[in-house]
């Protein structure tokens, strides 16, 4: 319906390819699609034969009136015949609808699964340049659009076309003069409609733009509510809102009015055809050129004839947006994936020695801009390594390279003497526990969040780890203990979340550890509690600690000071302080006061 379709359709780049690709997800062979299309055509044809037969009834009745005796048996036969056709038509339509439901849902399910699976096969760099919301919207909105519109529009177009040509054919074989009349009057009406649609496009765009501006403003103002209050800005904010709201009112009115024009105009087009058929038909009948049944049939045909063209134009629009959406989905599915490593079966001994050997790195999309220039360091098993430096120095990048989230562009990283490219990513990940600044949790029980993807973890293990992390009291106070479902609404403090991620890493019990700004979102006093848990975690493990709070890394065995992708200093806290260089500067700046 026009009032709901107030959006500007997008155009796909390669329409045919998009449709074909989508349909290939419906079934492996084209057979079901052909069956559906045939059913749609049958259903339409059965329906279209009807009116001509109804004309026959009119003729029979009129003959009865004029002769005085009605041939009821003949009438009944025709009625039963058409009734049968109609029932067939309905059944064909129903079967087609049911098959379609299966097909479209299959497409949707498969596409969603593929998108989700794709997320884990994409290199991390993809997400550096693409917003999460974008991926999310492809998996939901776009898939919805594809599954609901694409297949449905396609069958609608086919059956509408069948209806259009079927009607045209039936009308011509019934009576060409009336056929001409119907076509002419319908075309006149459609022409008018096209003009309205053309004009209204502009207003829809205006509405979209003004609504977008207003929504953006509302979003800003609601999020900045406190600032507005304390800046005494309410009056000026309201004033600006009124202006934007007023623009939306005008645009709303224009677009609403124009789209509201469609139903009455369509109705008028229908009436116009009706009247034309009636007048011409009556005159023809009066002059004895046709029988009454022709008029009866045509009064129905002219209504059936006007619908399809409108349906086709609407569905073509839908189909286009659906095809555009499917292109977005397939573009995502076609993104370059991480290399397949199923043949790499070597394992690492799990000692925990790491060597960075003249490591260089540049993001693949900006090969000329090197982020890590020449990074070399040797880490002995069991050491605590701190990486410090200003934002953008490349600290996290080093960790990402070590985990093979990115691949080095020069040099080599070796774990226990084995180049990390010689083993699979999974094997490397098995060497490390990771605690990040973002305390990632998901909706599930506390147990699921702790045990995450590990097998054979007993309740005793859980209790032991939670005690070591100072999380036991928290777990005990939950209504269902470890089986309490944690949601985004659960009342869990940042500190507790952080402890939870530490406990998770502890349960995983891998030989090495990475702490990437693991405590920067909690205050220093809570940090001391967490620190105890982390010290437990780090005992006897090679650990890499990234921190901007230098107090936490004073006891590191080796501190690497990074600046702009290079190690500028390395050593222990004391030796670096004695050096009086970048580290000492950074450290002292924490305590200087005005």
């Amino acid at each position, binding site marked *: 319906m026009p009032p709901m379709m107030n959006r500007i359709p997008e155009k796909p780049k390669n329409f045919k390819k998009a449709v074909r690709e989508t349909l290939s997800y419906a079934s492996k062979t084209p057979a079901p699609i052909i069956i559906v299309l045939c059913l749609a055509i049958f259903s339409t044809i059965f329906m279209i034969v009807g009116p001509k037969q109804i004309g026959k009834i009119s003729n029979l009745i009129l003959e009865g009136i004029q002769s005085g005796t009605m041939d009821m048996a003949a009438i009944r036969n025709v009625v039963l015949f058409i009734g049968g056709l109609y029932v067939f038509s309905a059944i064909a339509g129903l079967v087609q609808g049911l098959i379609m439901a299966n097909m479209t849902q299959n497409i949707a399910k498969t596409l969603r699964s593929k998108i989700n699976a794709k997320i884990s096969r994409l290199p991390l760099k993809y997400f550096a340049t693409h917003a999460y919301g974008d991926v999310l919207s492809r998996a939901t909105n776009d898939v919805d659009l594809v599954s609901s519109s694409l297949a449905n529009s396609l069958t609608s177009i086919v059956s509408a076309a069948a209806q259009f040509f079927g009607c045209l054919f039936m009308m011509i074989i019934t009576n060409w003069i009336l056929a001409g009349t119907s076509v002419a009057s319908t075309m006149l009406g459609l022409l008018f409609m096209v003009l309205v649609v053309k004009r209204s496009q502009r207003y829809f765009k205006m509405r979209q733009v003004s609504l977008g501006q207003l929504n953006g403003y509302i979003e800003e103002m609601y999020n900045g509510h406190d600032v507005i209050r304390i800046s005494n800005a309410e009056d000026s904010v309201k004033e600006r809102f009124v202006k934007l709201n007023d623009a939306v009112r005008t645009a709303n009115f224009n677009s609403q009015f124009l789209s509201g024009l469609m139903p009455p105009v369509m109705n008028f087009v229908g009436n116009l055809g009706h009247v034309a058929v009636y007048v011409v038909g009556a005159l023809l009948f009066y002059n004895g050129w046709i029988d009454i049944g022709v008029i009866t049939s045509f009064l129905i045909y002219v209504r059936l004839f006007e619908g399809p063209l409108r349906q086709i134009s609407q569905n073509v629009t839908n189909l286009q947006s659906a095809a555009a959406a499917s292109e977005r989905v397939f573009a995502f599915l076609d993104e370059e994936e991480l290399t397949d490593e199923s043949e790499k079966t070597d394992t690492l001994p799990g000692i925990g020695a790491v060597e960075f050997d003249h490591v260089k790195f540049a993001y693949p999309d900006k090969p000329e801009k090197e982020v890590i220039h020449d990074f070399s360091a040797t880490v002995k098993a069991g050491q605590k390594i701190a990486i410090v430096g200003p934002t953008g120095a490349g600290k996290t990048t080093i960790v990402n390279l070590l985990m093979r989230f990115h691949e080095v562009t020069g040099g080599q990283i070796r774990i226990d003497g084995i180049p990390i490219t010689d083993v699979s990513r999974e094997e490397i990940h098995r060497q490390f526990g990771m605690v990040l600044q973002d305390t990632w949790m998901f909706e599930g029980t506390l147990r699921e969040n702790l045990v995450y993807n590990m097998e054979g973890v007993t309740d005793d293990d859980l209790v032991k780890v939670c005690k070591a992390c100072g999380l036991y009291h928290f777990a005990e106070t939950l209504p269902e203990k470890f089986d309490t479902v944690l949601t985004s609404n659960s009342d869990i403090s940042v500190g507790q979340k952080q402890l939870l991620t530490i406990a998770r890493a502890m349960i995983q019990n891998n030989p090495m550890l990475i702490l990437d700004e693991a405590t920067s979102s909690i205050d220093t*006093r809570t940090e001391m509690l967490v620190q105890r848990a982390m010290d437990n975690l780090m005992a006897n493990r090679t650990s890499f600690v990234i921190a901007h709070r230098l107090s936490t890394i004073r006891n590191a065995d080796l501190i690497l000071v990074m600046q702009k992708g290079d190690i500028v200093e390395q050593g222990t806290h004391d030796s670096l302080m004695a050096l009086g260089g970048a580290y000492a500067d950074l450290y002292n700046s924490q305590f200087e006061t005005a």
Partner: protein
Amino acid sequence: MIKILKQLSPRDRLISLVCLIFVAGQVWLDIEMPDFMGDVVSKLAASDKNLTGEILVSGLKMLACAAGSVALSITVGYLAARIAANFSYTVRASLFNKISDFGTTEMKHFSPASLITRTTNDITQIQMVISMGLQVMIKAPITAVWAVVRILGKSTSLSIVVACAVAVLAITITTVMRFVIPKFRIIQRQVDDVNRVIDESLNGLKVVRAFNADEYQQNKFERVNLNLTATNLFTMRAMAFMGPIIGLVMSSIQLVLQFVGAIIINGFHIGGAATDGHIIENAVDLMRSRSVFFGDLTVFGSYAMMVVMSFMMLTMIFMILPRAQVSAKRISEVLEEPISVTEGHEYVENPADPKGTLEFKNVSFHFTGSDENFMKNLSFKVTQGQTLAIIGSTGSGKSTLLNLATRLYDATEGEVLIDGHNVKEYPFNILYKKIGLIPQKATLFADSIRDNITFGDRHAQVSEDDVLEALGIAQATDFVMKKDGGLDFAVSQGGSNISGGQKQRLAIARAIAKKPEILLFDDSFSALDFKTDRLLRKEIAEKLTDTTCLIVASRIGTIKNADRILVLADGEIVGNGTHRELLQSCSVYREIAQSQLTEAELEA
């Protein structure tokens, strides 16, 4: 839904009434139209002569009806669009104004994101129902009743046919809807689940990989995906029944009308009653009566179509109505929410009042819905030019203390005094001229840097010099001048084209430019690097000697030199003194200090 419609202005309500009349007129024209045709068909059936003129005249009359009908419905469309646009304008404005009056409590209760949807999408939903409702919802029942009555006047059995068709349609639609509509709600939840799992995989990208948990995530996704697919499939299958059944009813009603009509015509006999009730006298009368009824039959066909069509339109309304009702409820909730913080009007300025003082007298505070005091019995006082620092762990109530001073929350016990007056006595514009707050999270608006700095009271007249001075103190001059256009640099929405530290400095400049008596910094320095932090505090100390400062901080270094330091723990003041005093007397303070400084530094 009804409640929200009260937002319509009296004028628009009157226009709605006009719409009703116009729609009735339109239905009348629509129903009249086939009648002209019926008359002629009757005459044609009876083989009357000299009909050419009559045919043309009746055609013209029908065209006139059609034109009149379309004119009326376009007028109704025009009026409905006007009413709907006005309605959404009014409701949006009252929502926006109401939300402007909200305190922080109400803001948190609803969450900005939800309020945004309520002000945008929810209104659009209702607007759609109003504009469609004024046309379709009024028209459908009028058409149905009127047409059925017309048919009833001519033939009871035919009206039964139409009534049956309507009944079949109504039963089909309601049955399908009864199965499907509850599923829609479930689908919504299942879509949320699918979103949640994908969102989870995206936000936990690194963790999922580090834990080699791809399969785990995929299994989880398959579960929610299957659930969603199953429900979707059920509803689609149920809906698949609707189209063919409606189509069948629409086609067969013509057929059945003709058939039943034929039986009725066949039943006419001399001595029997015609449809208009008169007794058929002879063969000529019989043929006349039969012809008249034959004409009526064509008309009934049109009526039946009208009835069925209007029913179809009505079901469309029923499809969108539930959603609109939910939207209406969500909007009403906001409009009816009581405001927790309202401005005072009791304040009378007294020249003897002190300037730049802030005092808490036995202030306690608890959040709405909670009985336990979050802030307990706070008492302290700062006077002009002093710097008071507040420190404590996360959740100890540091920010809440500032929010109580700025009336973002109101104290539930005790009083907060600024310049000797309770903050509740001040009108907002006077209160917020006296204080400037820099929240933890800097908020910038999509505007030029200059407009962001001068943001606020239009009458405050912040001059260009004030802006430049404020930028200087806030250590923002350098980077602002390096931006394209300097002060005219366009900040994008949410300040996304400016770095975190720069945003914070602009927010500080905004507060300073207004020259308030008291500046409150809510952990505003932690986004700054140590060096900028230090320079900024130095500038403030040197240039704003008369300004009282409250500084909430997490770094000891930031506040070491404050005139006085309050130490908060669990909403209580557990320490009040200078750095040196607190190191001796306050164990919480000492712990914080120890966590950040070495023994040597503690001694220094």
